[in-house]
């Protein structure tokens, strides 16, 4: 078997099929990146999984999952101004959390170099929006490299790291979901470790590092001057490429995944337009773009999400008084969703109706499959919690969700968590909902990883300003949604065991007067507790705890002598009340054509949390099968 950890550290050149996220790790190793930080979030967690594949003592760098993206950025920055090449990676919306720190970076002289790897999510595959983070680059004068494939992640990171180190400025490597997760064979170069220079090189002479008052303007001037030099760099960079099809009428300027889609779409074109593929999307290679505009009568800007490049290019054309016809976004739909091959096909058809030949499409499309929304796993403690909490509330009460697996509670049959914003927002949104409100109880949910990430300020504010909210901490002991990363209450960080920071102790320390605590499988008691908590007319907290059963079951299966268990339904006792399938809603329960309910043998984990939900007591306690 090939082991990823060994592959990643190979000293001689080699070829291997890897996904984009894994290719990034090899690029960081070859670039001698010394400090890497992150907070988990799709589409980037597999970067950390590849790092984990390398035994800790063999890793040529330090890695940590920090408490949130802002903290991760600060740790990386601190290391970088001490002389170490650093990288921070996180998902698209993570940059909003990190923004306060991030926007200052370009003012600083980052002597070690620092690359910010962003996992943007066009198509909102696993995010609450599809924000275009290139706007942040413009806001903060930070260059952006945008690869289109795993191979380009590998080569572009190395170029970005070099540029960052050479110029002492932050550089963004912007990835998108299906570039992170794409797989292909990459030819990797050889690599030899260098001895780590531990000298702490921080020196105020390299600064200033304190952007206060009069110092802000020279620092800003320097940032802008550096950006100008990068503009020249971009014009020389081989990462921007021209695909010349000898077409003097039409050209397309594009980048990233839309470029790949375009290439596939052009298989349906007889007269292919020329293509300028940008590898650097901010600043754009001005001279190259100008030359491309000059030699074409019509140019299409094929750009996913917002019109960032389009504005730059139209400005350029105006300044140079070019007569090229430039097609940008044509309607609202062009701003929405991922630029898949299908989407690009439609966009090009709209732009140049004569360009493409028709694609064969099936004629008889009948009967569609019922939707399959994600749902909580069999045995999930959140299911027991929602089932029990729902019984404590009136229909008019307001429930506020946060980010995490428990967000899925908004789906039928629970419909718990009617508002959602972003990490850590639930308690403060609930506080606002409680103002002037004497009639509808406000209950807010928060996961344990999110509690530490961004949940605390909202809780402290509720105490400080005396808001009447009931907080339910959905504690499952892990960062479950992104693949079970440890957090501050796990007793383990990425590298070693560490002291737990228990949620209860934090709440007590803050002075929360009413704290309840229970395992969510004790559903009846949980119902009573929540009833008590919402009757208190000040801030109260319920710690609704159960370990993540997906993680727990996987761990159990690996143990020797593991015996699978299952519940069973006594068809004699079953009165077909359907509480198990329609209210409790564990995916294990299967509706048969004759009205019977059966247990799905592949899905039941034998946790038994359903047994108490059957009014006819037809579900037996789990037994070894």
């Amino acid at each position: 078997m090939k082991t990823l950890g060994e592959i990643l550290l190979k000293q001689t050149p080699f070829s291997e099929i890897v996904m984009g996220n894994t290719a990034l790790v090899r690029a960081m190793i070859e670039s001698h990146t010394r400090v890497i930080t992150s907070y988990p979030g799709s589409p980037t967690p597999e970067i950390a999984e590849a790092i984990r594949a390398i035994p800790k003592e063999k890793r040529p760098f330090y890695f940590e999952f920090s408490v949130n993206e802002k903290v991760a950025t600060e740790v990386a920055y601190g290391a970088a101004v001490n002389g170490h090449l650093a990288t921070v990676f996180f998902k698209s919306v993570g940059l909003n959390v990190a923004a306060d720190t991030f926007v200052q970076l370009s003012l600083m002289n980052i002597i070690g170099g620092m690359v910010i790897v962003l996992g943007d999510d066009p198509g909102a595959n696993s995010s609450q929006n599809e924000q275009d983070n290139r706007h942040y680059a413009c806001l903060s004068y930070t260059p952006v490299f945008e690869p289109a494939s795993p191979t380009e992640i590998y080569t572009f990171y190395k170029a970005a790291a070099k540029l960052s180190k050479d110029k002492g400025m932050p550089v963004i490597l912007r990835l998108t979901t299906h570039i992170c997760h794409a797989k292909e064979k990459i030819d990797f170069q050889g690599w030899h470790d260098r001895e780590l220079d531990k000298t702490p090189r921080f020196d105020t002479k390299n600064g200033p590092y304190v952007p206060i008052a009069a110092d802000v303007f020279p620092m800003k001037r320097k940032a802008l001057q550096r950006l100008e030099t990068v503009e020249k760099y971009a014009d020389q960079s081989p990462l921007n490429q021209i695909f010349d099809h000898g077409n003097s009428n039409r050209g397309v300027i594009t980048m990233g995944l839309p470029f790949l889609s375009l290439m596939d779409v052009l298989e349906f074109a007889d007269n292919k337009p020329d293509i300028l593929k940008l590898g650097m999307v901010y600043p754009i290679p001005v001279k190259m773009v100008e030359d491309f505009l000059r030699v074409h009568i019509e140019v299409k800007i094929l750009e996913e999400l917002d019109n960032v490049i389009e504005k730059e290019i139209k400005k350029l054309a105006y300044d140079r008084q070019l007569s090229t016809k430039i097609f940008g976004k044509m309607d609202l739909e062009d701003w929405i969703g991922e630029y898949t091959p299908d989407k690009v096909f439609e966009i090009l058809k709209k732009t140049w109706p004569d360009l493409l030949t028709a694609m064969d499409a099936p004629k008889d499309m009948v009967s569609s499959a019922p939707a399959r929304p994600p749902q909580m796993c069999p045995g999930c403690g959140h299911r027991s919690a929602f089932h029990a909490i729902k019984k404590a509330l009136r229909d008019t009460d307001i429930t506020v969700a946060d980010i995490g697996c428990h967000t899925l509670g908004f789906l039928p049959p629970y419909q718990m968590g009617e508002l959602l914003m972003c990490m850590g927002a639930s308690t403060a949104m609930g506080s606002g909902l409680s103002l002037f409100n004497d009639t509808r109880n406000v209950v807010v949910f928060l996961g344990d990883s999110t509690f530490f990430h961004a949940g605390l300020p909202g809780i402290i504010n509720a105490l400080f300003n005396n808001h009447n909210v009931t907080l339910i901490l959905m504690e499952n002991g892990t960062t479950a949604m992104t693949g079970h990363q440890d957090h501050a209450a796990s007793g383990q960080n990425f590298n070693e065991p560490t002291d737990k920071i228990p949620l209860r102790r934090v709440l007590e320390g803050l002075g929360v007067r009413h704290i309840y605590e229970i395992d969510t499988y004790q559903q009846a008691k949980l119902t009573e507790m929540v009833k008590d908590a919402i009757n208190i007319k000040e801030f109260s907290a319920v710690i609704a705890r159960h370990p993540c059963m997906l993680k727990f079951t996987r761990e159990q299966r690996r143990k020797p002598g593991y015996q699978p268990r299952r519940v069973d339904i006594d068809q004699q006792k079953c009165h077909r009340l359907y509480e198990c399938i329609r209210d409790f809603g564990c995916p294990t329960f299967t509706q048969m054509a004759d009205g019977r309910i059966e247990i799905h043998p592949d899905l039941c984990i034998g946790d038994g949390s359903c047994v108490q939900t059957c009014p006819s007591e037809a579900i037996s306690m789990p037994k070894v099968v």
Partner: protein
Amino acid sequence: MKSFNIYLTGVGGQGIGLLSEILLRSADHAGLKVKAVDTHGLAQRGGVVISHLRFGEKVFSPLIFRNQADLVIALERHEALRGLNSALKDNGTLIYYDTVWQPLEVRINSADPVTKEMIQRICRKRNIRDLPIFKADLKDARMQNMVVLANIERNKLIPGIKKEHYDEAMKDLMQGTMLKTNLKLFEEERRR
């Protein structure tokens, strides 16, 4: 060679990831140029998992055009229908493991379940080869993917990939008892 597109689908937890990785590496061992991508938003929580695999010289995006897949592989019956509708081209091939993980709407009685006959009818209409697979005496549900793989080999559904390429790919990805059990099942089922 013309490109060959495979759309692999199932429910989170069914072992799509491993099957996809085996197919990808088998194609590489067979000397094909490969691109692939897994799309798995919140799949770990019982949602749909999809893997696109594309083999051939003129392949750019890892994503397949709608209804341009030559082969749809599904590990569950409802997902077989979804893949058939959204991904497979007319005259293509559908192979699926005929198990049912009922989606929410079916369980709460607000949608009809998908039947084997329904799939068969559509396939006949669109001239699609329809291969439902089921192994009644399979002990470990997590090995359904291997039964499907064996039937892919047995029916030679992927041009250019031979038995030894599948073996090599499995040896890249597994070891010990897991490798032995999977190779044994693969061998038995492909000869059946």
